[in-house]
């Protein structure tokens, strides 16, 4: 039985509809509730769960509001008058309903309990509305738990409700089934939240994680840009379970040597990797034609190396004293293949930036690409730090190339699993920072990322995209995102992008724009039972202490065993 004193109702239903919001007459002072509050409405055999999305002041007669009757009447009396004539209505966005059955003392309880041995069962999206005057109360910890589950190895606590601090958990198994996104304007604590989520994923061992760490933040310890405090890296905490990879031979990240270096063999570079860089390199429309000719002439494995070897603009003098392109020149090759010389030379010139990349070698020292894939397959997690190669060119080229390989590999493994009953591929999450660079409208069709986003978990690979400008991301990709975790966003287009494809957009829009700039996020999307604002956990020693205290899905020793130690 709820204790009336510790669990007072805050109001009762006075109207509303299923499509928009329910109206609740507030019976406690307005300052005791806030937008985003998680409320429970008991009506008949159902409990409804919803969010406060708005508060509105009202008066039964405008004169009661206009007249400052507290000046005319004793305070207590004016209080009583205002209590009845001035009111606050809440707008509550109903999200879920859960069958709670008749009361314990009700004659129908026995029968209900027989047909519902496990109690109320699962919360389902609202399909009806609570009755008039149904009491509304703020959610208790067990209400939140009934919806978001209790904290355990795979039900990861991302934070707490804003008002009462009840834990809000994210079901990581569900989280990795579809691509997801973490959004928020710059400075809203995106990267801390990402660290928290990644730590949760790694610790729970729900999936392997590949992190494209463009700014070298995640692997090793870092210093917070605003507080200058030390920020613990994932490698520091998870040690051998996290492999750090640096780009280029002999790379160092924050002065430390990664577990191994990533060098890319020239044979791995395909024409589509180049086409992806069209904008970055300002390539012409003739590029595909030229690339086709190159592949035809040199083969997919060698074209890059051969093309690089050609000399651009090299001339020789004939016996007649006429200057003609040298046989190893681009022009000579173009003429031979009947390709437009200007186009070929232009492409060669523009590709010179790629040719010069130090981490692209003819024969890398080790097959780092295979190493990464093996690590991920074995349940380890990889942080690829770009080191000093922080240009967009590096990021676009490497992430796309790597992802393509990985996906192909997972695709093969999946097919083998499905057709030949081989081992099931391990789920993989690829975390992508600055995602809009890879998933904008122009590039989305060309990159592997958009394919992954659309495929969901078909091949066991999903994305975790991290971005401050969700509006820049191709909306088809955005709408496929299952779980969305968004911090404060200032731009209307960004807000709309985050909310695309979700019910109750209008109600949530205001909430999103009024989040605290730090440590508050709105959790929403397919991956969570219902949208809810959350005060996120702090990424600090306390976090790690709590996290490490919870036993992972598979024990540490078991993981080590799997890894062959």
């Amino acid at each position: 039985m709820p204790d009336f004193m510790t669990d007072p109702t805050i109001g009762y239903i006075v109207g509303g509809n299923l499509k928009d919001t329910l109206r609740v007459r507030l019976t406690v002072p307005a300052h005791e509730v806030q937008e985003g509050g998680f409320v429970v409405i008991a009506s008949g055999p159902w409990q409804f769960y919803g969010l406060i999305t708005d508060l509105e002041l009202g008066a039964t007669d405008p004169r009661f509001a206009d007249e400052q009757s507290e000046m005319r009447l004793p305070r207590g009396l004016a209080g009583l008058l205002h209590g009845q004539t001035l009111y606050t209505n809440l707008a509550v966005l109903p999200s879920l309903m859960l069958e709670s059955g008749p009361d314990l003392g009700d004659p129908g309880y026995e029968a209900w309990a027989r047909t519902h041995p496990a109690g109320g069962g699962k919360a389902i999206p609202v399909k009806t509305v609570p009755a008039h005057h149904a009491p509304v109360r703020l959610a208790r910890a067990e209400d939140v738990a009934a919806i978001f589950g209790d904290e355990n190895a795979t039900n990861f606590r991302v934070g707490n409700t804003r008002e009462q601090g009840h834990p809000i958990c994210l079901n990581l198994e569900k989280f990795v089934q579809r691509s997801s996104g973490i959004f928020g304007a710059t400075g809203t604590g995106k990267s801390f939240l990402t660290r928290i989520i990644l730590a949760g994923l790694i610790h729970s061992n729900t999936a392997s994680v590949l992190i494209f760490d463009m700014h070298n933040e995640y692997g090793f310890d870092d210093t917070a840009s605003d507080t200058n405090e030390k920020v613990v890296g994932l490698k520091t905490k998870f040690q051998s379970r996290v492999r750090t990879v640096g780009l280029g031979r002999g790379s160092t990240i924050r002065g430390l040597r990664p577990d191994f270096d990533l060098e890319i063999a020239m044979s791995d570079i395909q024409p589509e990797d180049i086409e992806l860089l069209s904008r970055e390199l300002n390539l012409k429309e003739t590029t595909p034609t030229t690339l086709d000719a190159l592949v035809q002439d040199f083969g997919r494995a060698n074209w890059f190396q051969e093309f690089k070897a050609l000399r651009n603009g090299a001339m020789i003098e004939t016996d007649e004293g006429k200057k003609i392109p040298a046989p190893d020149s681009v022009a000579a090759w173009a003429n031979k293949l009947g390709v437009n010389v200007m186009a070929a030379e232009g492409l060669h010139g523009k590709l010179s930036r790629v040719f010069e990349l130090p981490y692209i070698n003819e024969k890398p020292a080790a097959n780092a690409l295979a190493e990464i894939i093996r690590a991920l397959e074995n349940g380890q997690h990889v942080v690829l730090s770009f080191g000093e190669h922080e240009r967009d060119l590096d990021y676009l080229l490497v992430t796309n190339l790597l992802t393509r390989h990985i996906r192909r590999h997972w695709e093969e493994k999946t097919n083998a699993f499905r057709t030949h009953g081989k081992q099931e591929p391990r789920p993989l999450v690829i975390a992508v920072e600055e995602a809009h660079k890879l998933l904008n409208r122009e590039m989305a069709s060309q990159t592997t990322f958009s394919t992954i986003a659309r495929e969901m978990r078909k091949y066991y690979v999903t994305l975790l995209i991290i971005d401050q400008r969700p509006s820049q991301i191709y909306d088809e990709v955005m709408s496929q995102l299952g779980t969305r975790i968004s911090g404060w966003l200032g731009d209307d287009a960004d807000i709309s992008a985050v909310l695309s494809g979700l019910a109750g957009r209008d109600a949530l829009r205001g909430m999103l724009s009024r989040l605290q700039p730090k440590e508050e996020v709105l959790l929403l999307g397919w991956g969570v039972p219902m949208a809810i604002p959350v005060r996120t956990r702090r990424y600090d020693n306390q976090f790690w202490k709590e996290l490490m205290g919870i036993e992972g899905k598979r024990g540490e020793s078991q993981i080590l065993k799997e890894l062959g130690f």
Partner: protein
Amino acid sequence: MSIPTTHSTPRQVEIGRLLRASTTGCVIGCRVSQLDVPSFGCMVSIPLQPGYQVFGLIYDIHIDDDGLVRQLVTAEGVPEDVIQDNRQNRNVPIEMSVLLVGYQQGSRVYHMIPPRPPLTLDAIYICSDEETCRFCSAGHFGYFRHVLRAQDLPVGELLAAHMQNVARSQRSHGNPGWVEQATQELITLLRDDYPTLMAVLGALGDADLQYAE
């Protein structure tokens, strides 16, 4: 020797007898010597038969004049014996108008107009604190209907005087929340009648009813 006090059956104070009545109200007459007890807003009861009594609120006390009184006021200084004569001997009876607000049948209190009015010369008593509390706490202030319906009455003043009386009784009978409940009910009933509500609240404000702040 001390006399043991009892709250259960305080002696009832008779204040007069019925002169005329209708279903909604009655007029009672009393002697001047009885006048110091009843006051405006006082609750009275009229027992009609065992187990059946009618309750009312005093809403008017009339003191009539006549030719002699008008003549007396022209004199320079009225002698004290003449004043007393006119107060005590000549204003008989003093008339009090009572609004009927409910009745009690057996142990049940009804906030409805009594089925039949009291009869000529029925005795009228001031309600004891206990009776007042029992009547006013029964049901949910249904008897306010009768007061609010009577448009010719000084409704605000009557309610303020009534609540001042009852609040005292309720407090001493362990129900200090009564005033607030009653006030809330009035606000609910009058929410859509702004002028009346403000008049009533103004009167309640002056009645110093000690609302919790």
